[in-house]
């Protein structure tokens, strides 16, 4: 057997496992030389100044009442107050599906509780109205219920994937309503706003850009020159253009080019976001496709599988698995990029935040409002990236050898 370099190291150079005491650890790591001591002291001073002034601002100066006073518009815009149950229904649908997904994916109960408990706690701590608290409680109950019902039932995941797929049109239907109906009247998209609009834009963008991106990636690799040229041209055109420009184009140009087709403002923003994300998604997927070795195509073909079947059953599953991190990264940036629709006059979370601080009553409270909006963006992005890490870990076994 060969000797490894680690085995050859004398024991004295191995890192010490546990420090003997806190005082000794401090002396060895932070105050071992005069310049390290100086650095430590200066850093401590900076940290102290930053924390103390932030805390003083957050607990003394900041006027947090602006948040509860504007919470409803921040969350749902100007959606008719009598119709809010429709948004709650949509939320409860998602809560149940999320719980069920955690259950089938073999997530541990503790982990699910760790996500849900803070939400329940927050709803009690913050000054919310009781109906809101009840609905949030119901959402928590549905997450837990979905988890218990589907726990360990891995076989059900194709059904769950289907349910997720159909939840998108279902949520849009809930939001839109039916023309001339009494119980569920049409709510025009001009009344959509706040976090609800942000989430809908992100959701539609995610659901549409992944399949379109896959098709574009396959198109770019197609052996038919027309298809590969068109796909490449579209991808490169979009990737060379800032999202703001695309949103403006969708906002201003579409009505000029297609005046008969009066496409809704929100739908135009959805189209813009989808086109933009699809191009990046296509490049991510293409990267994954290039990583699948030639032998995989040959093995599938040698079994007599047709080209499309080979792609669907052998190549794409491997390619997509390999690029899950970058796909989720794309989803996260799409979620944050939806804030740009405020520029074309949509009142998403950031748009509402801006209109709140423009109100003379809340003059000068930018910091409070933007901090709150930022916190919400972070909360959702963090959840997405955590679930991506869980998926990666769950698939770790099946990495190509």
């Amino acid at each position, binding site marked *: 057997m060969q000797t490894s370099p680690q085995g050859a190291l004398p024991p004295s150079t191995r890192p010490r496992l546990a420090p003997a005491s806190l005082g000794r650890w401090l002396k060895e790591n932070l105050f071992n030389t005069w310049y390290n001591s100086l650095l430590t002291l200066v850093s401590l001073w900076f940290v102290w100044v930053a924390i103390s002034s932030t805390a003083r601002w957050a607990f003394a100066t900041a006027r947090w009442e602006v948040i509860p006073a504007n919470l409803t518009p921040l969350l749902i815009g100007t959606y008719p107050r009598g119709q809010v149950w429709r948004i709650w229904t949509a939320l409860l649908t998602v809560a149940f599906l999320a719980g069920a997904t955690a259950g089938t994916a073999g997530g541990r109960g503790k982990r699910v509780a760790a996500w849900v408990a803070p939400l329940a706690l927050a709803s009690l701590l913050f000054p919310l109205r009781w109906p809101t608290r009840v609905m949030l409680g119901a959402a928590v109950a549905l997450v837990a219920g979905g988890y218990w019902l589907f726990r360990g039932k891995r076989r059900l995941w194709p059904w769950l994937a289907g349910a997720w797929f159909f939840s998108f049109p279902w949520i849009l239907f809930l939001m839109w309503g039916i023309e001339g109906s009494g119980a569920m009247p049409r709510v025009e998209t001009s009344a959509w706003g706040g976090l609800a609009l942000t989430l809908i834009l992100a959701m539609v963008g995610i659901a549409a850009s992944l399949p379109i991106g896959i098709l574009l990636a396959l198109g770019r690799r197609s052996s038919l020159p027309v298809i590969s040229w068109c796909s490449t041209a579209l991808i490169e055109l979009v990737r060379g253009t800032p999202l703001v420009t695309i949103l403006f184009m969708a906002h201003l140009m579409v009505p000029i080019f297609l005046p008969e087709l009066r496409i809704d403002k929100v739908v135009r923003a959805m189209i813009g976001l989808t086109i933009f994300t699809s191009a990046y998604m296509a490049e991510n997927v293409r990267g994954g496709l290039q990583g699948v070795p030639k032998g*995989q195509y040959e093995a599938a*073909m040698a079994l007599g599988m047709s080209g499309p079947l080979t792609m669907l059953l052998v190549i794409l599953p491997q390619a997509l698995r390999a690029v899950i991190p970058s796909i989720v990264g794309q989803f996260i940036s799409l979620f944050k990029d939806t804030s740009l629709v405020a520029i074309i006059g949509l009142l998403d979370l950031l748009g509402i935040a801006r209109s709140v601080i423009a109100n003379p009553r809340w003059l000068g409270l930018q910091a409070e409002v933007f901090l709150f909006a930022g916190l919400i963006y972070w909360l959702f992005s963090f959840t997405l990236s955590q679930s991506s890490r869980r998926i990666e870990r769950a698939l770790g*076994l099946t990495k190509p050898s």
Partner: protein
Amino acid sequence: MNVSQSDDIIICEDVHKWFGDFHVLKGISVRIGRGEKVVICGPSGSGKSTFIRTLNRLEHHQRGRIIVDGIELTDDLKNIEAIRRETGMVFQQFNLFPHLTVLQNITLGPIWVRKMKKSEAAELAMSLLERVGIPEQAHKYPSQLSGGQQQRVAIARALAMQPKIMLFDEPTSALDPEMIKEVLDVMRELAQSGITMLVVTHEMGFAREVADRILFFDQGQIVEEAPPHEFFAAPKHERTKLFLSQILHH
């Protein structure tokens, strides 16, 4: 296109192939009988792998004719897929599908190409895994198996399509020495079953024992063609003698 049925399951007439300017196959003409076991050997770069890959159209030939089980290989996709269904292939690098379990690897072809019922395919797969000696690995992923086990799964996967012909492209060249035997044992057992086998290999012991005929390739041509006892005892060509002396006394 159907050519008159004959005892020969593979007929090659003057097959040529170029990779760019490089003339890989220079007029291969050979007939292989139903149930015949043929071992193909020769120095690396002699075109033996390329030749076996033209038989199921993983490489396409540019001149000459190849007729497999009465169907001529042309650009016609239907013919190609029909021939591939009758022809199992085992690769040097195994090429198992890493995202599927062993069982799913084996049932994929039967379910999607042969339109077999899932339960039937699973039964077939389990019986094949018994045959290659690793039924207990059915629910593992390929990356959890040793090289020898992976190659045995690959053989089972090819057999699941119930092919008439099995092509082996250097099946033991990527294996550690201690795993070569387990794969060759499976192939020996398979040879008893009457299936047509073409094996590209350097395992001369296997060739001596199993082959009905040995084809010796050099520089894109079949230099010598003989039953094993003749091939090893009295090689005719200088090139064959040199090759045998190198491979047997290294």
